[in-house]
């Protein structure tokens, strides 16, 4: 413990609590409160109702939720595949080229997501790669955006992986493909699931690139929230936002369950 005296420890906790409440809890509580309200003119919301949720879990909103979930799942799967593949290939490269590859994969993080959206739009608006107007352009943009995180966490895990494991496997007569399948990937599983959680959460909350790309029949949930607040339906928007948060949390929970089972060490 860094702080020893009892008083000081209390003070630290108090500061933490205040900051936590102000920065994290309060905004979320406000949204939660608003999601059950019909008016909010005083200090507290009024006209409590569950009607907002009736809207937020049916029809358009339900469709958007499915859209978000499918987009996140497909984009994360693609990102994990590409990211892991690149990380594995990078691990076999010389240091200089590995750095180059790493830099290349970090690019989508460094570039604003609006720019990523724009570049995807420009790149896939003409034949032979005409994806504009289809759901695939959204999925491609999300994949580009989250691959960086998948690549980064997998390559960090690879760097930490003791080469003694794969060498032991090779000396026992296992070909590189067998070593990959039976030793390296299983050992990477904890970081793969961590990366999966990150990718899913990021994709489910993505708005700025999605806004430029989504076709009418593929509207992810964040777009719906934005549209709702834009036309002044703040309380419905809040309810949809709570649904989005809950869905994201559930997905993360499911992934972390896989994770605990994968972390045998």
């Amino acid at each position, binding site marked *: 413990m860094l702080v020893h005296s009892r008083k000081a420890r209390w003070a630290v906790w108090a500061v933490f609590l205040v900051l936590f409440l102000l920065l994290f809890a309060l905004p979320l509580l406000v949204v939660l409160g608003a999601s059950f309200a019909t008016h909010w003119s005083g200090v507290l919301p009024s006209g409590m109702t569950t009607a907002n949720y009736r809207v937020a879990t049916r029809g358009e909103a339900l469709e958007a939720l499915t859209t978000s979930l499918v987009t996140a799942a497909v984009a994360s799967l693609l990102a994990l595949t590409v990211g892991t593949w690149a990380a594995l290939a990078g691990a076999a490269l010389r240091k200089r080229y590995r750095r180059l590859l790493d830099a290349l994969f970090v690019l989508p993080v460094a570039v604003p997501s609006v720019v990523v959206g724009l570049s995807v739009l420009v790149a896939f608006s003409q034949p032979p790669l005409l994806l504009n107007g289809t759901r695939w352009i959204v999925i491609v943009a999300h994949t580009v955006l989250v691959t960086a995180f998948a690549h980064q966490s997998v390559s960090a895990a690879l760097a930490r992986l*003791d080469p*003694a*494991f794969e*060498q*032991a*496997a*090779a*000396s*026992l*007569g*296992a*070909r*590189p493909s*067998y070593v990959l399948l*039976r*030793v390296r990937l*299983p*050992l990477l*599983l904890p970081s793969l699931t961590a990366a999966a959680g990150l990718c899913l959460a990021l994709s489910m909350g993505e708005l700025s690139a999605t806004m430029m790309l989504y076709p009418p029949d593929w509207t992810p949930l964040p777009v719906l929230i934005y549209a709702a607040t834009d036309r002044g339906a703040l309380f419905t928007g809040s309810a949809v936002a709570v649904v989005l948060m809950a869905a994201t949390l559930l997905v993360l929970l499911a992934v972390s369950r896989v994770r605990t089972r994968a972390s*045998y*060490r």
Partner: protein
Amino acid sequence: MGIRFDSVTVAYDGNVVLDSLDLTVEPGEVMALLGPSGSGKTTALRAVAGFVRPVSGRVLLGGRDVTDLPPYRRGIGMVVQSYALFPHMRVEENVAFGLRARKAPRTEIRQRVAEALEMTGMAGYARRHPRELSGGQQQRVAIARALAIRPDVLLLDEPLSALDAQLRSGMLTELARLHRELPDLSMLYVTHDQVEALTLADRIAVMDRARLQSCGTPRELYRAPADEFTASFVGNANLLPVTVGCGGVDFAGAGLKVGTGDAVAGARATLCVRPHLVGLGEGPNRLTGTVTEIQWRGATHRLYVEVDGHTLMADVRELRDPPRHGDRVHVHFAAEDAVLLPAGVAGDGS
């Protein structure tokens, strides 16, 4: 199947860490690679296993050049210092790994896994995960895993260094038994512990700074080391700077009668005498000095005696009435217990 290093040179980024090594391990022989940290022992092992490619020279296994063969086609058993047991597999899966990778028939796998676990005394732990085993047990599993593929060559890289002293001597006995049970298995055993090398090896190769210093049976290296490094690394040694005279050598103004071989009179040389061959009191080749330190080691006393600025170690049977710090004592040794070595950098026998 034997191992042969044919002037194998290994370099990392232009740094030579193994300098044209020539060494042959006969079929069924246990060869210990002994040397200080960083002398290139692990590198030599990695060259045999195929994890590092020599910049020049060849590695031969059973007369076949394997220099260009990838590790998975060499059929070598290897046990590394960290054991590298696969943490996500049970003990039996770890041991079966090599056989599964080779697509051995299922019945054969079961039988060989049982056999390997039996041989290493781990049959009762087949269903456990490596993290549920002690260090010594993990080490046995690592050996069982390497033996399950029935290799002709077993490479061991400081397999006992992670174990405490008591467990280590037990495992040494087990390894010796294992070798009796598998007389055709050649073993290359890396260690920087001379006791391990002396106990286990048929021959010892002493390495220093990327080079092979000397190679011979433990007895040869101990009784008649060829150079100062070998003398001080295999067992303890008093190394005295002397000048060759006729029929003996001069040390600190005293004439010592020892065999000089073909050394030229007047040349500088180093005289090597093992501490346990130095006696206390009057005798042939007597030297007189001052006791600077006495250590009681149970069955023996070790005396440090300063003779004309050089410290001599003497291990004598436990004394009922040991000399005290600062006492003048005589020490002596028999002519046939001293070995004359070419002069080197050492000299004060410390």
